[in-house]
């Protein structure tokens, strides 16, 4: 008896679903008909310059960052009440694969968050809308520098819009413990090494690294490479014009190898980024070489009573050699516009908004954010750590802005570099890592 009931339920459910599905299809057809009919007019701006219509925007922030981004989007909706924004949140780990599949299938979002490596790949497939006018205006206004434009561009054409910036190569420390050890934040490489040796002599662990998450190791490689080999070699590795066995690159690996051999904790590969951050906060290690976002993470994940600037602060990694030009390693999130968007006017309006000082100031106020737009005033930042990080942002054209190397290259080379750095932590074998990278980077051989 019970069985019969169960079966009939299954059948009924199937029928209901089929019926719903049938109805849904018609509805969908009507809906898509609507968009097709009204889609084209949407694409033009109305007489007063406002935009309207539907617009999808994809991002992968979560938690407090998601809340901050929602506040930014709310600002756009307020200014453009006729635009219906569809928010598409995607898990960070799936972002690249999902974006690629959707764009390849022709169903990508109108506006999406994206890293420069993917911009390069997508631009080559003509998936993205060129943003020349926008950038011409920004450069004229002095909102961005040319080296920032270059990062958002492929072969001279800008496709990306800077939104969320970050400064790398920061050494985080606890001022009180520095006082106990009798050391000062170093300004030269020699002083830096002296400080590290002082810590070791005092029986302290100098660094927390977080090598089990792969990317923290690249946070080391980038500034070391930039300082030791200089900006030209750095950018040469990005675009494939410099080989990984270039003497300057080899020297950078040797410098990193010495740092690892002398100052890395023995269980570097057993801890991830958050554990490393908390280990430094707790005093298990003295220093952490990381990006500006540690300011947010240290409070959010380890101890919410920390006072920025007092309980934790940073100094920029010192210049390796006085003769090398000033460099600043950075990273951050850009946005790009789908070349096949049904609503190009609203999409470029959103892109322009996200790159504007107004939009970026909204998140900057919430903290854990460095505004890439140089016109965002420094008094919007909520604490001294964010403020000092923002001052390091390469707003001055004389400072070369070097974008996160592996994120910029992307793909197989990125993955292999990260894995090779883990191996390098174990054996510090310069020849091996150079060979691995030469093998995988086939661009220079053509």
């Amino acid at each position, binding site marked *: 008896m019970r069985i019969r009931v169960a079966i009939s339920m299954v059948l009924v459910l199937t029928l209901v679903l089929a019926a719903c599905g049938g109805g849904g299809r018609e509805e969908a057809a009507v809906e898509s008909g609507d968009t097709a009919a009204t889609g084209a007019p949407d694409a033009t701006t109305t007489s007063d310059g406002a935009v309207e219509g539907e617009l999808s925007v994809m991002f992968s922030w979560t938690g407090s960052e998601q809340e901050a981004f929602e506040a930014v989007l709310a600002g756009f909706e307020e200014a453009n009440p006729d635009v219906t924004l569809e928010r598409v949140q995607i898990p960070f780990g799936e972002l*690249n*694969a999902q974006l*690629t*599949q959707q764009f*390849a299938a022709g169903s990508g979002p109108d506006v999406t968050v994206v890293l420069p*490596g*993917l911009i390069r*790949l*997508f631009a080559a*497939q003509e998936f993205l809308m060129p943003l020349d006018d926008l950038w011409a205006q920004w450069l004229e206004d002095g909102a961005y520098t040319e080296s920032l434009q270059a990062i958002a561009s492929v072969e001279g054409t800008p496709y990306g819009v800077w939104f969320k910036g970050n400064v790398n190569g920061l050494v985080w420390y606890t001022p009180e413990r520095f006082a106990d050890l009798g050391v000062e934040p170093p300004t030269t490489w020699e002083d830096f090494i002296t400080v590290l040796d002082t810590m070791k002599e005092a029986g302290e662990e100098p660094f927390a690294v977080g*090598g*089990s998450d*792969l990317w923290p190791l690249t946070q080391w490689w980038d500034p070391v490479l930039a300082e030791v080999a200089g900006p030209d070699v750095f950018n040469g590795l990005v675009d494939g014009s410099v080989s990984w066995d270039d003497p300057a690159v080899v020297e950078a690996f040797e410098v990193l190898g010495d740092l690892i051999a002398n100052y890395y904790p023995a*269980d570097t*590969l*057993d*801890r*991830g980024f958050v*554990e490393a951050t*908390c*280990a430094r906060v707790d005093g*298990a290690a003295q220093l952490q070489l990381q990006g500006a976002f540690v300011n947010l993470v240290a409070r959010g994940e380890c101890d919410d009573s920390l006072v920025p600037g007092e309980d934790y602060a940073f100094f920029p990694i010192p210049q390796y050699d006085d003769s090398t030009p000033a460099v600043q390693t950075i990273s951050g999130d850009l946005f790009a516009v789908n070349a096949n968007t049904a609503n190009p006017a609203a999409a470029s309006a959103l892109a322009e908004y996200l790159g504007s000082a107004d939009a970026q100031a909204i998140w900057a106020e919430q903290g854990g954010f460095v505004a890439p737009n140089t016109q965002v005033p420094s008094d919007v930042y909520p604490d001294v750590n964010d403020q000092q990080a923002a001052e390091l942002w390469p707003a001055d054209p004389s400072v070369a802005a070097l974008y996160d190397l592996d994120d910029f*290259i*992307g*793909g*197989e*080379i990125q*993955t292999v570099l990260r*894995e*090779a750095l*883990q*191996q390098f*932590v*174990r054996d510090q074998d310069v020849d091996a890592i150079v060979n691995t990278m030469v093998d995988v980077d*086939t661009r220079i051989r053509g």
Partner: protein
Amino acid sequence: MTDTTERSDRTLPAEGVGGDGDGRRLAYLFISPLLVAFVLFYLWPALNTLVGSLFRWSLLSPWNIARPDTWDFVGVQNYVDTLTSGRFWNAVVNTLIWLVVFPVMVTVMSMLVSILIWQVPRGGALFRTAFILPMTISLAAAGVIWTFMYDPDFGVLTRFVEWAGLGFAVDWGPLTFQTADWLSNPGVIDLGFTQIRFVNLSLIVAGFWAFTGFGVITFTAGLTAVPDELVEAAKVDGARTGQMIRHILIPQLRGPMTIVATISVIFALRTFDVVWVITQGGPAQDSEVLAVLLWKQAFVFLDSPQAGLATAVAIIMSVVLIGGAWPYLRGMTRVAR
């Protein structure tokens, strides 16, 4: 074919006499709902994958049967490249560790637990729930939870080893082992030509924890089919527990055992989420299994067109497993008249 027809004629006289045509039509009515979904959404994409392994392509410009401009035919080059790559063989070794260890652990443990629960008069449902609970957690979340477990600072395992004073490290030439660094370097057996790295075992434990509930459910369902008379008879005969299990339960549980063993072998071969979430195949490539390798080739190495290589890896995996399971599969298809 003739053989099977004869047998069915014998077992099902009513249909056999009435007309084979009707019986066939009826059979298709029975199977068509499943086959339509299967062919449309599994077989057809799978065939695409099979053919795609003969082409060079990437996720950016996927090989598409309807678009000849995407056909960059390379023949068996993807297979040659795969079989000559050190990275592939490293993944094979790690997958083999899974294939040997995981099914044995799952089958033995879930059978043991099911029989224990079957023997207790009450509380069975409660105990079963303890084992089924992990199954309800997605494998990705299970991966995150096990990352907490192995955490070097506040992980349960680390702290327990500390508290109980169980920490030790051994270094016997080719074998090293330590009760620390579970996810980076717990130890290794160096065989000269290859290395068996224990970090894989750390991951297998996480999968084992998540998967045992499946075995418990299957064995429990199988145990319900054990006729009470058999058990009663054994008790009257004064059979001891051990003998009863060996001579009555185990033969009765052959069906569920096959299911659990087969599905855990397939799970081990395709294992992905746990590894991807916990180590991403690292450190370096210490725990990279085949499914992780092909995921990276198809979905991460976007700049180099390696999706064809990934499909070749998938085909090689499938062929080897089907080949290994061939005698058993033949048996199954024969029984399914």
